[in-house]
């Protein structure tokens, strides 16, 4: 492929990923409201469009036309830039994620990954981790005590759970011997029994728990815990800046779904009679549904319980898992 062709293909991929995933993030909010409503014996959004499908559009119009308020004592440039960090890191992280298996369109072979780098996992986790600057800066810049508390919680929660994510993912990486997500995917090409989740169940559970904490989802959504700190770091935000935090959050959920599917659940390899492209969509959808499911079922934890869980339970288990994996690999 020529350089020009490569650049054009990359730009098209970027546009498709950006458009598709912001739309999916928007649609995710509709799904979340609907699923939560059904689980709580409610109807959810019903009035805009058939079964409320167009509610996303109505919300979008509302968010775009709302006044963008910046509090008087806020640090203006940081306050304005924080939501952009949130949304941008979420989409940048998607750049190194292979979304579908290779396919041909108009006779051109397409690799559905924007940047096939050999340290894919590292890049994705690193960019997702740098997303913690969004709530941190937002909370600290908005000159609001709830925002400040939210920012403090960001620091403890996201930073601590980075450790668990890294350690839990280390064991499968030791088995595969590569940081490229495509290599990890190909490692599991032998079918259902080759999935890493069967050889690394502990790592899978740890990764999911840490993922919940890092995407700020319910059992660990301390950053904006309504009952305690109003809306946490997002208290002072309104309109589209507020919306960007949530597009970022939902995009992060989808990214995490892709990561968990690729690393542990066999990725986009064919699954029995299901073709690979459909298989990974199913897996990611299930994980996304799982995010909503737990939100309906499980209560929040307190910040001290969160820290206790991270440092006294999950991290030792993760370290043990790495050690045991190492010993088994050596033998």
């Amino acid at each position, binding site marked *: 492929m020529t350089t020009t062709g490569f650049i054009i293909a990359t730009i098209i991929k970027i546009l498709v990923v950006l458009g598709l995933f912001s739309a999916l993030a928007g649609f995710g909010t509709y799904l979340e409201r609907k699923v939560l409503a059904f689980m709580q*014996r409610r109807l959810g959004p019903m009035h805009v469009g058939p079964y409320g499908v167009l509610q996303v559009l109505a919300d979008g119009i509302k968010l775009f036309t709302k006044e963008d308020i910046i509090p008087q004592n806020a640090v203006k440039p940081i306050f304005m830039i924080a939501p952009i960090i949130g949304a941008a890191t979420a989409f940048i992280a998607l750049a190194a994620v292979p979304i579908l298996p290779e396919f041909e369109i108009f006779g051109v072979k397409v690799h559905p990954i924007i940047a096939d780098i050999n340290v894919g996992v590292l890049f994705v986790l690193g960019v997702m981790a740098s997303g913690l600057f969004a709530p941190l800066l937002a909370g600290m810049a908005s000159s609001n005590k709830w925002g400040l508390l939210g920012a403090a919680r960001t620091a403890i929660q996201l930073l601590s759970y980075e450790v668990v994510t890294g350690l839990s993912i280390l064991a499968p990486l030791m088995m595969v011997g590569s940081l490229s997500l495509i290599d990890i995917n190909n490692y599991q090409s032998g079918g259902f029994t080759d999935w890493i989740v069967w050889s690394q169940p502990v790592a899978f559970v740890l990764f999911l728990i840490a993922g919940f904490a890092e995407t700020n989802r319910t059992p660990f959504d301390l950053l904006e815990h309504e009952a305690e700190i109003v809306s946490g770091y997002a208290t002072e935000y309104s309109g589209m800046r507020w919306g960007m935090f949530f597009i970022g959050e939902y995009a992060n959920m989808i990214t995490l779904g892709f990561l968990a599917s690729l690393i542990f659940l066999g990725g986009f390899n064919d699954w029995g009679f299901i073709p690979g492209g459909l298989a990974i969509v199913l897996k990611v959808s299930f994980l996304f549904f799982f995010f909503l*499911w737990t939100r309906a079922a499980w209560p929040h934890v307190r910040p001290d319980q969160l820290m206790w869980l991270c440092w006294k339970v999950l991290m030792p288990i993760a370290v043990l898992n790495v050690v045991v994996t190492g010993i088994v690999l050596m033998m």
Partner: protein
Amino acid sequence: MSLEQFKDRNVAQNYVHIPVDKPPQKPMDKFKQVVRRTFKGELFVGLWVVFREMIKRDFHTVKYPLEKLPISPRYRAVHKLYRLLESGNDRCIGCGLCEKICIANCIRLETRYDEKQRKEVTEYSINLGRCIFCGYCAEVCPELAIVHGQRYENASEQRAHFVLKDDMLTPLDFLKEGKQEEFPGFGAVSPNADERIKKTPTAY
């Protein structure tokens, strides 16, 4: 929700007391509790409960302006003034008891003698912005002329809308179609009223 459930005021009989264990005191007991809870699968019970509710699709939402819950016949909402069934005249005889008993001072009526020397009610107004819906007027009315209806949506743009007699009085065409139903609720005669009547003391 059925009307029977709705009228059941003795709700305490349906209360269930959930036994609560004492929290563990020693560190070892605390550790045991953590282990027990970790492997008991309580989290999965929670997941199953909400999933079951989702697939049952047993929704409890009332789409309020489109559908309404039944209300008790004893509910005290905006008043109604009834007419006599045959003649179609107002039932109100202008005795003024409701005006007298009203503790919010919101009822006002004006009467005069008509050409047959019968009392006629010229004005009857209830200031609903002030009314506390206690039901005394309906209770005291000797003619069952004023009763509490079941129209509880009384928001309006103007205060003047709260006092109109025409809104409360049964329209004549309604009466002709037989749509004026006797009100079983507040201030109404009880179903066994005949049995409860006592003779005057001089008779026994």
